[in-house]
């Protein structure tokens, strides 16, 4: 608050942590506010990305954690294009998000997942993946073989248990972290706007911002990629739920296959495309794929690609009547799903959907959206 005599203590280490989390240009920012001013979101939303950066530069921790602006960022990158210091604010904001996620997560896993090196992440991932493999190719191997011999696609209840357990635990952790995030964000703010109005704000905001962004080539490309992932993941979850709850659905071959193929192919393309661009990044590649190369970015893609491929393979094999192959693929799919859910879905970059939703909700309810 302005004018008060209360002084906020700072945490001098924040800037170093955020630096390590990918905000390499954090202190190059000289606070001109170009990023805020140039951002298409600013038309609709009273946020200051610059201020978020300043909070972080100085380590005003409580303000950082409650700041919704990093979550409102859609990484369109106009700020990075217009930053007079070449400081890449979107990258800094992504790093701040990593920092925020770490602080929102009470388990400390996010801290490791976001903060560790690429190699240790990979090792961690592989260890869990290995355990999953052990589980499915060891413990469940007999039952898999048994199911395979039936030649049918049936509800594989006990095979699904580990994944379901992991999924439920992850959801629980996510919910508790989401609640923590909500508490941080709502602090010192007042709910001024009604729920319905808020939702309207958010909806119109998304439509406006995204449709504006679609007009720009490089943004369109990224939005499409993101949308593919979003659709793929959505279908994935839908299919998973259907699989558990309405297994009959899979008897309608055409529709279920269509959905499955769409889900997995969109995912493969949505994940594969940015991944390929990152790997083959050259002169002409948009900077987005070069700058955002924090290990968490890689991992968010890397962890998602194999289950998507495996799912595709399951049904390809199945429809080709290569049942044993299909079941192996299925086992692999589940083995890939466990580390994905446990690490990426619960603690990784993928958590941003949750915090984003909370941030928009808080923003909308507390009057951050402009106009009526």
């Amino acid at each position, binding site marked *: 608050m302005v004018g008060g005599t209360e002084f906020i203590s700072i945490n*001098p280490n924040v800037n170093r942590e955020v630096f390590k989390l990918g905000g390499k240009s954090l202190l190059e920012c000289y606070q001109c506010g170009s990023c805020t001013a140039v951002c298409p979101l600013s038309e609709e939303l009273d946020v200051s990305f610059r*201020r978020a950066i300043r909070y972080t530069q100085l380590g005003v921790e409580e303000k950082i954690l409650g700041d919704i602006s990093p979550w409102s960022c859609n990484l369109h990158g106009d700020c990075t294009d217009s930053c007079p210091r070449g400081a890449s604010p979107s990258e800094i904001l992504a790093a701040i998000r990593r920092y925020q996620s770490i602080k929102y997560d009470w388990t400390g896993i996010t801290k490791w997942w976001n903060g560790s090196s690429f190699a240790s992440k990979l090792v961690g991932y592989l260890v869990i993946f290995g355990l999953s493999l052990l589980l499915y190719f060891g413990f469940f191997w007999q039952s898999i073989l048994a199911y395979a011999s039936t030649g049918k696609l049936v509800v594989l209840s006990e095979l699904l248990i580990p994944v379901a357990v992991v999924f439920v635990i992850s959801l629980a952790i996510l919910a508790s972290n989401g609640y923590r995030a909500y508490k941080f964000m709502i602090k010192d703010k007042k709910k001024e706007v009604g729920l319905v109005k808020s939702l309207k704000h958010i909806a119109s905001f998304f439509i406006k911002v995204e449709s504006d962004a679609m007009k720009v080539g490089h943004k369109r490309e990224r939005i499409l990629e993101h949308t593919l992932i979003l659709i793929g993941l959505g279908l994935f979850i839908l299919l998973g739920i259907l699989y558990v709850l309405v297994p009959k659905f899979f008897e309608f071959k055409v529709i279920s296959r269509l959905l499955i193929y769409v889900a997995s192919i969109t995912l493969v393309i949505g994940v594969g495309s940015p991944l390929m661009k990152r790997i083959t990044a050259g002169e002409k590649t948009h900077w987005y794929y070069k700058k955002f190369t924090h290990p968490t970015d890689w991992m968010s893609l890397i962890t998602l690609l194999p289950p998507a491929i495996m799912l595709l393979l399951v049904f390809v094999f199945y429809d080709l009547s290569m049942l044993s192959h299909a079941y192996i693929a299925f086992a692999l799919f589940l083995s890939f799903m466990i580390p994905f859910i446990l690490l990426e879905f619960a603690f990784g970059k993928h958590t941003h959907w949750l915090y984003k939703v909370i941030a928009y909700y808080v923003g909308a309810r507390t009057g951050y959206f402009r106009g009526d």
Partner: protein
Amino acid sequence: MTEEPRIGVYVCHCGFNIAGTVDVKKVAEFAKTLPNVVVAKDYVFMCSEPGQDLIKADIKAHNLNRVVVSACSPSLHEITFRTAVSEAGLNKYLLEMANIREHCSWVHHDKEKATEKAKEIVRMAVAKARHLEPLQELEVKAETSALVLGGGVAGMRAALELANYGFNVYLVEKAPTIGGKAALIGYVDPKTKGAEIVSKMFDRVKDCPRIQVLTNAELIQLSGFAGNYIAKVRLNPRYVNEKCTLCGECEEVCPIEVSNEYNFGLNKRKAIFLPFSNAYPPYYAIDYRVCVKCGECEKVCRFGAISLKEEPKVVDLKVGSIIIATGYDPYRPFKGEYGYGLHQNIMTLFQLERLLDPDSPTKGELIVGNKIPKSIAFIQCVGSRNTTPGAKEYCSRMCCTTAINSAVKIKEKYPDMNVYILYKDIMTYGSDETLYEEAGKKLVQFIKFEEKIPKVSITPEGLFIDVFEYTIQENLRIPVDAIVLSIGMLPPRDIEELIAVTRVSCGGEGFVREAHLKLAPVEAPTKGIFLAGCITGPKNILESIRMGSAAAAKAMSLLSKGKLTIEPMIAQVNEEKCSGCAICVGVCPYSAISIKKVNGDRIAYVEKALCMGCGTCNAACPSGAMQHLGFKDIQLLAQTRAVFGGEMNV
């Protein structure tokens, strides 16, 4: 007037420029009717060769002793026609221009009215011409030598420049060593050490026989004028001579200890001391202000380099010009200003600079309170930009760059240290901006404040800075281990004495005022006195050095011919009439007038070399004794009266 004026009037057509609107024939006819006009002619281009020849021929043929050229503005062709009349043997100041082009034909359209006006303009010019007098340019001999006050970088630079040019230079320095403040700055830019620059300059000064370095010396009196100053310089005793081998034994036995101003009070020194390791002249010096003359040092010195019997001496130096380069004083924070003086970890930027210097008491390590701090904060604008009650209004120009430079240096050396810079506006102007950029890359943290200035709290838990961060509008509490006050610059403490001796004047901010802020930045209003370095206001080292060269250029321009030409259109005193009331002395902006005794009478005396010819003394002179040659009362009154056809008679 000894001879009756014989005036020739020449009216120019300037093609159609004048003749298009003014009936020049009529003007010439009219001119013939004016008193003392002997001949009046018109011609198409008076400024052309034939036009000038016409005038020259008439001067001879009609024995003219005044010429009025009625043409364009004097700013355009006065010099042309003056040259022409002087070629015809007439004193060039017996020419008067009547401006009937810019003031008449070009601004009016009614031919009749314009012609009438042109006639009156000519009548005014003729009226003035009747009272014109021949004037002579004067030449005085000038010394090709200079006195440079202040042995800092600006002074040394000026001295080197002038000595190389062939001037004899006296480099007068108050302290026992030259080098100034720059010698004490650890790093003046990320790559350059202050001490290095200074010692390289010492080498050049040493090799230049035309520079005489006078340390421990002060200018106590200045008389004379440009080209011919006599400077009285007092040489205070050093008590140590050139036999000194810097063995340092004397220092050990000296019983007197005082705060060491060369380390900005970071440590102590003895009464006999060497200011810094590469000081020049490279001998010990005894601080005559504190020495009790116990004689211990004299006894211990094996080389006979010390003699406590030395007495102050006063020498008279004849010099042609004075270059003032006495620099600045660092701002002196009062006790408690941002906690200054209340905690050992709160220091000034200058002290920090000393710490970062490899030649410092800590050998270049940033050790405060016996350990290397984990975090350090610079507070900018201490003493500048109206921050605190004692602060000056001006910006001290160098502190932002110096602080950022030091911050970068610290970050290079101690990457884990948190370095904060609390600023109002970062003044890294010009290419220094890259340093600011660099600081960001080196993870220096910046905090902006505005009117509400930061507060330093000294608590048992340590030091804290409470600051209202402008760009996030929050009150923050920053824990720090050390605080650096980026202090600004003050005019040197002895500026009053300097003003009293050299008669330069001060601006509102307390620094010496230059002749013109924009276009004469290294010249004092008084001819022959030039300014270099921070004496005119805060500068950085590079700017001071350039000013040194620039001031030298001015002295070269003024004196290189070995003589000075004095414009004759200056003030002149009629000693018969002057009563010595001294009103003119106070109004002269150049201190060119003084009161002298002539046969027991007080008489105003104009130092011709200093007078610039503004005439304000003439206007102020109550008795009419002071007259502005070329613009005398009678000349201007005659011109005034001529507007209405009246005359002014002697």
